[in-house]
């Protein structure tokens, strides 16, 4: 394997027009002289880097990322909890508001009803008084009218008596005139 590589390396190394002793050079990546040192230093440096990364740096980065994401999740939880609380507060406020409104409405209603009742009572009383007064007035009017009617008869009889007296010179009695008029 290595021999084949070296051969290939020799062929390749002959191709580039380099320095004067280019033909003697081995194509560097295939030079077996330096295989051991490269493998050794690669394993050493890679091992050190692996150790540093796996023990120190990667846990540190991972921890930071995890802390942040858990912090964000916590904050989101708290935010949603607070939002829920706010919603509940709003709901209870609305409930209280509705209660107060209903109560106010009730108070207004009862007040209105009592006022209405009072008004009605007073109105009834006033009505009754007025009708009583009207009745009294009517009876009086009736009395007056009857009296007046009666008066009219006597006035008419007297007027007729006077007229007859003036025409005939004879004065008839009231009763006669009345009889004649009726």
């Amino acid at each position, binding site marked *: 394997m290595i021999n084949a590589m070296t051969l290939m390396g020799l062929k390749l190394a002959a191709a*580039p027009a380099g320095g004067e002793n280019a033909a003697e050079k081995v194509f560097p990546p295939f030079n077996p002289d330096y295989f051991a040192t490269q493998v050794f230093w690669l394993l050493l*440096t890679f091992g050190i880097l692996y150790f540093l990364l796996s023990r120190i*740096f990667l846990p540190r*980065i*991972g921890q930071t990322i995890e802390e942040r994401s858990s912090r964000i999740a916590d904050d989101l939880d708290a935010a949603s909890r607070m939002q829920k609380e706010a919603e509940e507060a709003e709901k209870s406020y609305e409930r209280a508001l509705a209660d107060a409104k209903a109560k106010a409405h009730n108070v207004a209603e009862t007040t209105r009803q009592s006022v209405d009742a009072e008004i009605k009572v007073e109105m009834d009383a006033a009505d009754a008084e007025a009708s009583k007064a009207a009745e009294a007035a009517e009876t009086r009017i009736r009395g007056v009218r009857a009296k007046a009617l009666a008066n009219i008869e006597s006035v008419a009889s007297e007027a007729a008596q006077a007229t007859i007296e003036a025409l005939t010179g004879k004065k008839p009695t009231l009763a006669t005139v009345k009889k004649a008029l009726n």
Partner: protein
Amino acid sequence: MIAAGLDPIGQFEIKKLAELKIGNFDISFTNSSLMMVICVATVSLWLLLSTKKSLIPGRAQSIAEVSYEFIADMLRSSAGKDGMKFFPFVFTLFIFILFANMLGMVPFFFTTTSHIVVTAVLALMVFAIVIVYGVWKNGLSFLKLFWPAGVPIAIKPFVCLLEIISFISRPLSHSVRLWANMMAGHIMLKVFAGFCIMLVGAFGVVGGSLAGILPFLMTFALTPLEFLVSFVQAYVFALLTCIYLSDALHPGH
């Protein structure tokens, strides 16, 4: 001197900075090792400064968190929730490759991922984890991976053969994809940029500058493309790793 600077392969050369040996193995500290160390240091510095654990992230912290979520989402969506135990591994792979690729885009910086050995080790690491974890967790039923359900029995052996071949060729394609992309991109950049220099050398400063406009524009256009490739290849490598790991977790498909 100019010729050496123009050599598009020269940038992949490894130079020893300090000799080091364990037994027969030469493990000298090289420019490649230096870039790997710089890569790890850059990543560490970035994360050290950007992970302050503040609740409201700043710009730097957001980038770190976005990268974290990006890889985590990718792993979760392709390997499921129990795939998250591989998260540090996948994240390390992605970040290491991404930074190695990106640092390689800095002029005069060496690109570690432009060497097949490096990408092969990374790919074999994934391959080994898939096999070891798959067998450890599922036992023999891990072999169901090669015996897919819901396939007519007549063509099942054939499908099984294909599955085995594709499974074995995984580390190869996984590593070569990253390596070839990184290497080809850097060679291309170097070639077109080198054209400008060569044209100046051939036609003088005025003529060469005029003639060099085209390769210059090409380099100009290729640079952002290479940045994109750097990211996409790191992403693809990590994504394929997730998909392979999903096989280890759920071999029955």
